[in-house]
């Protein structure tokens, strides 16, 4: 096992899949000569050439629409959106085309494509560049939505996404690129649509994903010092949502806190809480708590921004609420 950053893990996944399959190529803004806005594709342009690492104009609709068209010819495009906030400029192609063509044309259109997008707040980028709109995309049947919280999952899930015959939205968190973790040697994939227990515990179930896994883990460390053992379930995939580990854990702890970076209203927490109530109502010992972003557009000011994003203390307070 090597200890590498999330950035290196994602970069390795892309590199290895491009070496394996000539149908795989990358298109997006600044992915080539620049080396990727977050340096994920550094060195790719020189190695794979401009045909397979394609710099596009700032045209999100044709980045996604173009990837859809190329996928329909049998290629396996990886379309990169510089940030998920720019996905709104390509919303029609993500939700009206990518998510629907296979179904709407009776199964004859196959779209083996990945949309990589960077999301999350905490970097003082202001309201339009800091959002976590994951739940919006997870709302649409036909799309698969993946958002890893560890380097090992990032690499394995991205490789699975590239090999998948369905369109996958792969959301990376900007402040996780430097996060380090053990990554298995050699070729491996992590299945899409499988949640996992990242940390075992007996007292409370914390359900989370992406950056909030890190925040929840810090909270769990602190809680452990107070003899409260939190079990953390990492969703990893938002659609299709795998509730099995969540329900299994909840039936043991009878208490749950759901932690997400996006807004609370109509969010991932709302969905997971509803499903727990629907499927494990008899096991509920306390009202399920949701920890989420304050209901404001994220402000630029550092202190204000930090006030709006969930912190370990928020998770700890919510856990104490249900215990």
């Amino acid at each position, binding site marked *: 096992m090597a200890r590498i950053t999330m950035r290196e893990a994602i970069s390795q996944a892309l590199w290895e899949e491009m070496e394996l399959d000539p149908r795989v*190529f990358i298109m997006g803004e600044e992915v080539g000569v620049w080396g990727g806005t977050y340096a994920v594709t550094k060195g790719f342009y020189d190695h794979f050439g401009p*045909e397979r690492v*394609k710099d*596009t*104009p700032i*045209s999100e*609709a*044709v980045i*996604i*629409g*173009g*990837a*859809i*068209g*190329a*996928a*329909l*010819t*049998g*290629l396996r*495009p990886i379309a990169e959106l510089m940030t998920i906030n720019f996905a709104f400029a390509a919303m*029609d*192609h993500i939700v*009206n*085309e990518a998510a629907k*063509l*296979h*179904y*709407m*044309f*009776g*199964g*004859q*259109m*196959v779209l083996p494509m990945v949309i990589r997008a960077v999301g999350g707040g905490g970097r003082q980028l202001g309201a339009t560049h800091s959002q976590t709109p994951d739940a919006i995309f997870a709302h649409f*049947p*036909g799309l*698969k939505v993946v958002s890893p919280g560890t380097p090992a999952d990032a690499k394995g899930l991205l490789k*699975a996404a590239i*090999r*998948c*015959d*369905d369109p996958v939205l792969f959301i990376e968190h900007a402040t996780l690129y430097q996060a380090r973790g053990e990554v298995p040697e050699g070729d491996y994939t992590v*299945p*899409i*649509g*499988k949640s996992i227990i990242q940390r075992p515990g007996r007292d409370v179930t914390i359900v989370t994903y992406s950056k909030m896994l890190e925040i929840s883990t810090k909270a769990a460390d602190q809680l452990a010092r107070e003899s409260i053992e939190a079990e953390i379930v990492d969703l990893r995939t938002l659609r*299709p949502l795998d509730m099995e580990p969540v329900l299994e854990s909840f039936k043991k702890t009878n208490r749950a806190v759901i932690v997400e970076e996006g807004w609370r209203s109509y969010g991932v927490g709302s969905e997971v809480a509803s499903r727990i109530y629907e499927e494990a109502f008899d096991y509920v010992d306390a009202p399920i708590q949701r920890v989420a972003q304050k209901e404001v557009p994220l402000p630029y000011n550092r202190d204000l921004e930090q006030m709006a994003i969930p912190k370990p203390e928020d998770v700890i307070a919510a856990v104490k609420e249900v215990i």
Partner: protein
Amino acid sequence: MEKQEYLDLYRQMVVIRRLEERAAELYQQGKIGGFLHLYIGQEAVSTGLISAREPQDRVITAYRDHGVAINCGIPVNMVMAELLGKSTGTSKGKGGSMHMADVSRNYFGGHAVVGAHLPLAAGLALGDQYQHNDAVTICMFGDGATNIGFFHEALNLSKVWNLPVLWVCENNLYGMGTAVDRASAVHEIRQKACGYNIPSSCVDGMNVMEVREATEKILADIRSGKGPYFLEAETYRYRGHSMGDPERYRKAEEIHHYQESDPIGIYRNFLLGLDSITKEDLNHIDDQALQEVEKAVEFAESSPEPTPEDLFKDIYVSERC
């Protein structure tokens, strides 16, 4: 062109006309649901364009797509069955009037959001360029689509990457009920291609031979690596934008004026001027087209509805991967 080829173009146009007329009736009877956009009046555009393609060339269009489906070789039965929402339809009853496709015939639909398929067309052409396929993508859209951002992103990229794509604007003078000069800063639509350094020309979209001959030359140029091209076809739809059109935006005289240059009438006269083709040849085709469409209605009406299990089919290729 051989006699048979001339007659086949005529057959396609008449089949489309009869199909659309019958579809209008079925719509009024409540047998076709949703929106229904008829191609009546514009038959020569698609027929001329697609008759000039090689089998490997790809076709993609907007929601006025039944005629294009016929031109791409989809049996009338399947088109009619899709209109009736049957499992034997082009999209197994899940697409309807606006979403017909047949990937095996390189026909990629049938797209209902105005202009949204232009980026897809750029992508189809990119796929062929990447794989060094000897194919061109023909992308059809209306004048209204030239006012949406998708159009500009797609045209720009096609030129920057020198993609093998033929952009075809079917200018029928109205985007729904809004006339071109009320919606577009440029009234001569093809001028918009100049902004992207894409060569363009205009063709009489009511004259199938003119469309076909222009397309043959353009496709050869694109195939030789000259990059994208913009063709404006001036045409006119005789029926409303869709079946729910109150038609408050144009006068009956205007429609009658354009009906005098009916694409089928023009072509019929042209064919009768050829020594090899007789009135009987054409009347025979007229009769056959009528029968073919009637049989298609029977086929569609007797076809099975999709099953409740079909509701959940084809959301994903595989749930887990």
